[in-house]
C-alpha cells in the first residue's frame, strides 16, 4: 500500500513544458513513476520528453486515464488550473506553485466541495512513495523505501528528517509536504487518517511550524484513533511574533500559535515531541521500540 500515490498512479503535469516541470517529470520517470502526459494549453498534439501534450486536463484524462496531476502553473493562472483538474476528475492534485493568492485558494476550496479529489499544496515539495511514484520536486534519491509515514509543511525540513532517519536505517512509506500557505488543500488531520489505515506504515512523523492549529487538531484526533506512534516537531521556537517567516502561514498571531505552545499541546495529547530538529531521526527510532 502507501498513501495517495503508488506504482499504479497515472500522472500528468500541468504546465508540462516549463523548465522545472520537465526536470522533475524526468526524475519521476527515473524512479518508476508512470508519467502519462502533460497539459499546456495551446500545445496540444505535440510531444514533450516522449509524452503526449494535451490542451485540456479533460483530454488528458480521457486519453491516458490519468488520476494524479502535478501543477507547475504560475500563480496568476494556478487556481484555474487546479479547478480544471478537479472538474476533469483527477483524484490527487499536487500544487508545486509558490505564491498563489490566498483568496484564490479560498475559492478553490469552495469549488472542491462535492468533488472526490484531494489537493496537496500549494507551495509544496509534493508527495513521494519511494521506488514507486514521485509527484513533486524533492530529490528522490534521498528517500529510501520503508515503513515511516512523513507529513510536513516544509520541503527542506522534510529532507532533513528523512536523511536523519535513513542514517539510522529507517525508510519511508509515503512522504508528503502539505505546503506553507495559510489556506491549503489538505491538512495534517486528513493525512494522519490515511496513514492510520495504511498497513505499510508503522509510525507517523508530523513536522509542523508556528501559526494555525492544524497540528494540534491532528494530534487530538490521533490520541483517540491512531494506533501507531506519532512523532511531532514544530519549527519556529525562535521566530518573533507578528512576522511572516517565509511561509505565508508561518506567523505568530497569538499565544497559541507559538512553537512552545503547540509543542506543549502535542505532548499533552501523547505525541512524542522532538525539541531539537537534529534529534528527529533518533526520536522516531526510539518510538518504534
Amino acid at each position, binding site marked *: 500500500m502507501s498513501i495517495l500515490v503508488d506504482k499504479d498512479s497515472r500522472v500528468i503535469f500541468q504546465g508540462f513544458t516549463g523548465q522545472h516541470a520537465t526536470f522533475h517529470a524526468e526524475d519521476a520517470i527515473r524512479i518508476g513513476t508512470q508519467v502519462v502526459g502533460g497539459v499546456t494549453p495551446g500545445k496540444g498534439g505535440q510531444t514533450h520528453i516522449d509524452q503526449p501534450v494535451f490542451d485540456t486536463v479533460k483530454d488528458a484524462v480521457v486519453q491516458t486515464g490519468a488520476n494524479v496531476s502535478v501543477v507547475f502553473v504560475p500563480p496568476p493562472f494556478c487556481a484555474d488550473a487546479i479547478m480544471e483538474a478537479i472538474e476533469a476528475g483527477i483524484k490527487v492534485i499536487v500544487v508545486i506553485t509558490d505564491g498563489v493568492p490566498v483568496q484564490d485558494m479560498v475559492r478553490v476550496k469552495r469549488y472542491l466541495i462535492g468533488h472526490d479529489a484531494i489537493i496537496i499544496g500549494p507551495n509544496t515539495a509534493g508527495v513521494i512513495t519511494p521506488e514507486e511514484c514521485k509527484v513533486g520536486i524533492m*530529490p528522490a534519491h534521498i528517500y529510501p523505501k520503508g515503513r515511516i509515514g512523513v507529513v510536513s509543511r*516544509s520541503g*527542506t525540513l522534510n529532507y532533513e528528517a528523512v536523511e536523519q532517519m535513513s542514517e539510522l536505517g529507517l525508510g519511508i512509506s509515503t512522504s508528503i509536504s502539505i505546503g506553507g500557505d495559510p489556506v491549503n488543500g489538505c491538512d495534517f488531520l486528513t493525512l494522519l487518517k490515511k496513514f492510520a489505515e495504511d498497513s505499510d506504515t508503522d509510525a507517523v512523523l508530523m513536522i509542523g511550524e508556528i501559526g494555525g492549529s492544524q497540528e494540534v487538531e491532528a494530534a487530538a484526533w490521533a490520541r483517540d484513533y491512531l494506533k501507531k506512534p506519532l512523532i511531532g516537531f514544530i519549527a519556529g521556537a525562535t521566530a518573533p511574533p507578528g512576522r511572516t*517567516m517565509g511561509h505565508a502561514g508561518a506567523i505568530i498571531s497569538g499565544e497559541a500559535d507559538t512553537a512552545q505552545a503547540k509543542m506543549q499541546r502535542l505532548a499533552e495529547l501523547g505525541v512524542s515531541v522532538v525539541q531539537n530538529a537534529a534529534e528527529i531521526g533518533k526520536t522516531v527510532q526510539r518510538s518504534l521500540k
Partner: protein
Amino acid sequence: MNIHEYQTKELFRSYKIPVPDGRMAHSANQALSMAEQLGGDGWVVKAQIHAGGRGKAGGVQLAMTPDEVQQHAENLIGKRLVTKQTGEFGRMVNRVLVEQIHQIETEYYLGLVIDRASQRITLIASAAGGMEIEEVAAETPEQVINEIVDPAVGLQDFQCRKVAAGIGLSGKQIVKAARIMKSLYRCFRDKDALMVEINPLVATKDGQFLALDAKMSFDGNALFRQPEIADQRDFEEEDPKEVEASGHDLNYIALDGSVGCIVNGAGLAMATMDAISLYGGRPANFLDVGGGASPEKISNAFRIVLQDPHVKVVLLNIYAGINRCDWIAEGLVKAMTDLAVSTPVVVRLAGTNLEAGREILKRSGLSYIHADRLSDAAEKSVKAVNGGAV
C-alpha cells in the same frame, strides 16, 4: 503588505465606508493649514506609522485650536515613536493625519480576516470596541461574533443584519451598520486583503457611524493584480536590509542575535535558528534563499547578512532538492572572495550534487568550518561565536 491609516481611510472613502473628515500632512505648517481647511471645533493629530499602540505611546494627540494642531505635528514629525510594537528604537514619523473630532456615543469593533480554521473569509464584530480584539476574545469570548462567508455567494445582507443585532444595534442602525459591513467585505475581496480592522467603529451623538481607526494588510502574493495597492508600499517602514533582500528575491528578517543564517526553505530555516538557540546561541536573522538559488543569490545573501554588525559567524545550511550544492558552493566562494569575508563561516551542504559542491569548496582553498549534520552545524556556529576552538 501593510499601508498607513490615511491610505486605508482613502480606500474606505472610495467604498463609501464613512470616515472622519481628515487630511494627511508632511509638516507642522501643512498640518496647521489642513486643520483650518477642515474647520470644526477640535482636531486629532495622528502619527502615521505602520505599528499599533500609537495612542498609549503619545502618537495620537487632541487639539482644540489650529495652533495646537501645529504644535502637536511639530512634536511628532521627524521624531521616532516608540510603541509596544515598534521595538526599542521606534519608527520614524514622516507624516501625520489631521482629522476633525466627533462626539462619540458608542464604540464597536468590526473586522475581516481569512480564518485559518474555516479557511474562509470571516467577519468579526464586537460591542467591545476600542480594545484589542485578541484580549476580548480571550477574556469574554461571548462578546465576539464570528460570521463565516461562503465564497460562492459572498457576504449576505442577512448575515450583516444578524451580526449588527448581535452587537446590540437596533432600528435604523442595523441597516446602516449592515451597509458598512457589506462595503468592507467588498473592499477586502476586491483588493486581496488578508486583514482589515475598524477599531473603533463609532456611533456619534448625531446617529452616524464612523471608522475612527482603520488598519489593513494585503496579500503580497496578489500584488501582481493590485498595482494601486502595491504603489502604496512605504519602504521607509521596513528594515532596509529586508527591502534589499526582497529585491534579490530573498526572504530576510532581521533578529538580534550573532549567528547569521543562510538556509534554503522556510521550515529548515526556522529549525536551524531553533537549533542554534538550543546550543546556547542566538540567530541574527531568518534568511530563506528559496529554491533554484544561483551563485549570485548566495553571494547577495552573504552581503546582506554581513551588513549586520552583530554577526560574529555565518551558518550556511543548505539541503538541496530543487537547489544544487555545486551552485551554492560557487556562490559561497564568490561571496567570500569578493567580500573578503573574515567572519568565520560554518558550511553544511546536503542533497543534490553534494560531491560536486564539496569539490568546489576544496579547490577554492578558502578556510571555512565544515559540518556534516544540522546538530554539528549549530554547535560549531555557537562555539565560533564564543571564540572557542571548533
